[in-house]
């Protein structure tokens, strides 16, 4: 029952991969997610096939009429330049989030139906890169997104690659009370990012993208950038190496704070306990 669970409880900053097995589940998942956005006074932006049919099926015409929901085809969104351009798409989410706020909404709630990527589209080979790096935008917490992947259209290997690029994933087997596995939240004071939840193989590429580019993504005068890991309930060995790599690449600007004793033991195992401040 994916439509009854996490999809109704996503928050700004979340970016969930939703793997659906049939049209019925797809529609009910969208209903849950969209209704939460209507309730929370957010701008809802749907990029996907058959936008009119979606508006009919979910009776969204009133919300479309007042501009709270906008439905756009892939050809007019992801593929507007004739090919998939990840950087341009990331810029779209950022500007749409700003526009939603300027229009008086509390934020942007995005939906990307990625079925187009199953076709022979130029740029689709950068899809996993995009799904990992777009977390750098959502971490600013001005927007949230779900990406719909239809299991009938993608190979298991393709699904695995894109799923691991999301901090959270939902499918038919997900428990109704599950929370997003990992959450990123960019912070202002101190400048940096806060990690919450569990970091493992299922979201490694998302974490890597956010941390690898963190120092670039936070412009400044060279003042410190902090990765606050105090909210990590679990971190695997690869997470520790990603933290280490980020600390080395971002030195001396980047620092890690809030390590648990367990995380310290893993840092010691990697010979780098000094990376973490208390």
């Amino acid at each position, binding site marked *: 029952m994916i439509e009854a669970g996490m999809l109704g409880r996503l928050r700004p900053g979340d970016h969930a991969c939703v793997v659906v097995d049939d049209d019925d589940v797809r529609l009910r998942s969208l209903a849950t997610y969209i209704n939460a956005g209507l309730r929370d006074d957010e701008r809802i932006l749907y990029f996907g096939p058959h936008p009119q049919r979606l508006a009919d099926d979910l009776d969204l015409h009133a919300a479309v009429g007042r501009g709270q929901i906008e439905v756009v085809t892939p050809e007019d969104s992801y593929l507007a330049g004739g090919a998939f351009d990840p950087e341009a798409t990331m810029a779209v989410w950022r500007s749409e989030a700003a526009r939603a706020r300027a229009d008086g909404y509390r934020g942007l709630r995005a939906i990307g139906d990625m079925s187009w990527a199953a076709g022979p589209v130029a740029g689709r080979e950068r899809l996993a890169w995009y799904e990992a790096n777009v977390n750098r935008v959502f971490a600013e917490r001005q927007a949230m997104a779900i990406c719909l992947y239809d299991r009938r259209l993608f190979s298991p290997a393709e699904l695995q690659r894109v799923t691991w690029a999301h901090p959270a994933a939902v499918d038919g087997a997900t428990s109704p009370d599950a929370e997003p596995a990992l959450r990123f939240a960019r912070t202002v004071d101190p400048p940096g990012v806060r990690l919450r939840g569990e970091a493992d*193989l299922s979201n490694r590429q998302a974490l890597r993208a956010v941390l690898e580019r963190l120092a670039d993504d936070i412009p400044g005068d060279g003042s410190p950038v902090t990765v606050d890991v105090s909210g990590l309930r679990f971190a695997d*060995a690869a997470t520790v190496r990603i933290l280490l790599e980020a600390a080395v690449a971002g030195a001396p600007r980047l620092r890690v704070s809030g390590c648990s004793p367990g995380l310290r033991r*893993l840092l010691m195992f990697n010979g780098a306990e000094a990376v973490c401040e208390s």
Partner: protein
Amino acid sequence: MTFDHPGLLYRGDGDYLHVTTGFVREAVAAGDAVLVAVTGHRLRSLRDALSDVAGAVSFTDMATAGRNPGRIIPGLLLAFASTHAERRISVVGEPIRPGRSAVEYPACAQHEALINAVFAGRDAAILCPYDAGHLESATVDDVWRSHPVMIVDGRRRDSPSFTDPYATAARFNLPLPAAPSGAARLTYAAAGDLSRVRRFTGRHAVEAGLPGARVEDLVTAVNELAENTLVHTAGGGSVTVWVEDARFVCQVGDQGFVADPLAGRIPADPRVPGGRGLLLAHYLCDLVRLHTQPGATTIRLHMAL
């Protein structure tokens, strides 16, 4: 650059002290970095006997450092060698003493054999004392098989039964005894299942009375092994847990094959991804037993309760 790996079959304290202190004094005189890693009263008596050269010798309790025999090569020997990278190292190391249990022994014997493979071509000497009076004859046979040179009655001689270290280690790559029929078991097939694997392992370990920090260690190790399944094999795997002889046991089974006999025994470069799940398991757990063959690998993690 030569590697010297003598096995010492001693009879009584006098024989033991005579050979080990002679080995240490010679190494100190030659300017080697010297480590003595033995247990209990042996550690005390060697400290006393070597008090005049104590400043040139490091002492460590093998009961702690070598509690998990799979950790001795990466965590003790190679770590000591890398701390003293410019010098020859000489080590007195006693990994197998009377009292090692039947479940530990195969891991100890594999360790002794693989020392030869890991240190081949390195400038090092590792003397391994064995209590000839108290070890079973099969164990003594294994000592002859895993040491190219033996010291018996104070005399060095080549071991006629020394065998290729990989072949000796492979002799102990045996099916593990069956898990108890009532053991709790969980299967996993995708990365989204890992959090369930961790909760399952953690909950059972807590119920068995394992202290919190050790539960965390075990959960971390199990997670790494399950991730290995998902990354390196085509299928999923299973985790089975039970309590046995005052140990909490957690078994990970999958369809993979650990082709490298040295997997988990060589410290990995922290900047290179992958290849350290087993190493971390050795580092975090009290004992790791492994049986691997093409299409089926079973790794059993043990935590003392």
